[in-house]
């Protein structure tokens, strides 16, 4: 059923219209880029991770729909200040929930957010291993 606000919850609209942590981190510790081949959405997540494996900063660049942008914004907010172990526990459900729910056809956007964390942390670990 439609919300009075449109297809999206007020929270989604808030994050879509005023996304948090949008942009690059030039010296990121890890970068994850994930995409949805069926609709072309791409989410790029930059993480700044300190020596205690705490995520000091997170930023995103996203090409995609309202839900994808809002999920990106939300996920950066959710993982900032967390350890990478904690961050890896953020699931698509918790992202969607934090956004006040997503339409069924847009659940994949929150999945993308979860995958972006995983990819960025994987990248961080690989980079670290190489050092």
């Amino acid at each position, binding site marked *: 059923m439609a919300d009075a606000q*449109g*297809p*999206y919850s007020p929270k989604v*609209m808030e994050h*879509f*219209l005023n*996304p948090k942590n*949008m942009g*690059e981190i030039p010296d990121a510790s890890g970068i994850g*880029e994930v995409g949805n081949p*069926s*609709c*072309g*959405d*791409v989410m*790029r997540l930059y993480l700044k991770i300190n020596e205690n494996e705490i995520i000091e900063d997170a930023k*995103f*660049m*996203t*090409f*995609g*729909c*309202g*839900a*994808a*942008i809002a999920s990106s914004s939300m996920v950066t907010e959710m993982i900032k200040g967390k350890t990478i172990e904690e961050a890896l526990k953020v699931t698509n459900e918790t992202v969607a929930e934090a956004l006040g729910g997503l*339409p*069924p*056809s*847009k*659940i*994949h956007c929150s999945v993308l957010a979860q995958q972006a964390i995983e990819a960025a942390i994987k990248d961080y670990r690989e980079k670290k291993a190489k050092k």
Partner: protein
Amino acid sequence: MKQIFMDYANATPCDSRVLEAMLPYFIEKFGNPSSHIITKGNEALSALDNSRKIVADFIGAKFEEIIFTSGATEANNLALKGYAFANQHRGKHIITTEIEHFSITSPLRTLERLFGFEVTYLPVDSFGFVSPDELKKSLRNETILVSIQLANNEIGTVQDLKELISVVKENSSAVFHSDATAGCGFIDINVSELNIDLLTLSPTSLYGPKGVGALFVKNGLVLQPLIEGGFQEGGLRSGTENLPAIVGFAKACELGKIEMSDRCNYLKPLRNRLWEGIEKNIDFVHFTGHPEKRLPNNVSFWIEFAEGESLLLMLNYMGVMASSGSACSSNLRGKSEDDLVASPVLTAIGVPKDICTGSLTFSLGMSNTIEEIDYVLQIFPGIVNRLWQMSPFYLDKIKGHTPKLTKVDK
């Protein structure tokens, strides 16, 4: 905030004169045309007959060649399935194009999947035109039906139906159907000049009501009805007639006939102003459809590095309503991601498939003004830029490239 509606291809308000014509038929003149032995029923039948005559005149058809339906979608389904079921003994091949509305392609897929028909989907060129040569080559002995739209609601391109029909008539015995839903408010249609057999009409682009449409069925054609029962509409479409809507449809045709050229003359300069403004002020824009042979109210394009749904949401936030053919903006009511379907039109005209295109269609209507166009031109570059600033693709691309953007909001 002012609400600026520029999605007339998907929804039109009733003209107030249309609503006025309809009003007596809800309470006062509520009769059933099938009960025309009694006064109330006869009054209803007179109104039905009168409406049918007006709609027939609108396209140069005969009275009995107009079958009222519940809308364009039903008319398209009746034309395709109805003709296919009734004429399958003559052959089971049907030709259509890659840029038809889902109300053409969905029933055709069902004919293929469940009923053993074979359908050829003709490609189109980058403007969206069907090639008469390709059409000719695709005709077979078993081809019983060709269905090609008059105009495309998304990219605005208007086909040269007359030429396409004569190719079919000269080279086959197939009948020709056209979905004129998106064109009939702007383009004068004469079924006998066109030599067409089946034609779908909708009041949508005529400021008529929802819940009604019509199929022109040339005298002598045999169709299997889809909705059967009480023998209404010459047995081709049963069910108590939706008389208020039919009367409104007729009124919309009557007004449309008189005012069509004035409407086109009003809309075209607005459309051109919007087109030119976008062309001048925004980079990475690709206009779609043919620049001349197009609907007078349609501006359509896609923008690199910006996704259609996001564009729509931001425009809507700023009070401007348009539409997009992007997958992400489609069928949001669906049960899962699989229900999102990108418009096949963009793929058909060669828009790269691998990016989720930022397609947009502005379809103008008689309520739009120059001031509204200028407001859109004022806010749109900023919206595009905002999305670009979020896009990893744009980021990668612009290293070293200065975009043409002239205005940026905040």
